[in-house]
């Protein structure tokens, strides 16, 4: 049986999994592909509604771009600390892992805080100033649905990362689990990069 595989020089045998070192990683990739479709539908829906609307405010006039650019950088930094945490746990350095993982979680929490501040400011001040309503204008509705759906992902990521931090500290989880959590966290960062462009900048 194995001779057959050897005969096809260079070709991989059909049994080799996509992610040989862990099935969980493939599971996370499949989940993320599905999750990307949810975000994709929301972003495409946003584009269609915007194109079909007679009036649409210039997003950079209503939304604070400088604050959001800061939020984007914050998520990118927390992605970097996440890969550094993974590198640390791969090297077997638990203390360094705990430090970088805590930074990652903190980055997510600050992001959520800034988003809460942004939302309250928008609903309370900026939207009424532009004669826009939280519930009646597609501009506002699509904005809150998209950023809200993403914010829920960040919330989930913070909880997920906290659980991984606790489990690694107790020795129940290893580098493999950190890598899978990292995939989710980087995906949340990746989606925010796209939302930042489509919702805030364009």
């Amino acid at each position: 049986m194995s001779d057959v595989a050897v005969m096809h020089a260079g070709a991989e045998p059909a049994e080799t999994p996509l992610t040989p070192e862990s099935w969980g990683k493939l599971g996370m990739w499949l989940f993320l592909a599905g999750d990307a479709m949810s975000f994709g539908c929301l972003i495409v829906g946003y584009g269609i509604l915007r194109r079909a609307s007679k009036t649409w405010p210039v997003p950079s006039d209503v939304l604070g771009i400088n604050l959001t650019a800061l939020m984007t950088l914050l998520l990118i930094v927390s992605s970097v600390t996440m890969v550094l945490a993974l590198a640390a746990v791969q090297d077997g350095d638990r203390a360094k892992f705990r430090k970088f993982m805590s930074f990652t979680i903190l980055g997510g929490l600050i992001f959520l805080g800034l988003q809460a501040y942004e939302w309250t400011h928008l609903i309370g001040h900026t939207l009424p100033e532009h004669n826009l309503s939280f519930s009646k204008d597609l501009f506002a509705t699509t904005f809150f649905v998209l950023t809200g759906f993403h914010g829920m992902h960040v919330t989930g990521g913070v909880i997920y990362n906290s659980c991984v931090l606790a489990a690694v500290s107790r020795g129940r989880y290893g580098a493999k689990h950190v890598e899978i959590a990292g995939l989710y966290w980087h995906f949340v960062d990746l989606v925010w990069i796209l939302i930042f462009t489509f919702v805030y900048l364009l």
Partner: protein
Amino acid sequence: MASATHSTTAYLRIFYILLVLTIVEVSIVYLHLPRILLVVSLVLLAVWKAALVAMHFMHLKFEKKTLALVALSPFILCVFLILMLMPDIFAR
């Protein structure tokens, strides 16, 4: 393979590129370019940044090629989604 995926300097290099690209994006908005130029440049920059995150932070560069198909599938489906909705957008 493990040594190729975790080098702190390589990660920091990606971070600096992402940082510069983000600054460029925000500057482009303040430049008040013609609409078409703005859209094309910003979308290209966003795709570039997203690709950097997927390739380096999510290690897609070091995975099997077939896994990239899994990662790309939602984008292909989204292109079809846009194509199917085209009549709705332009036939009005």
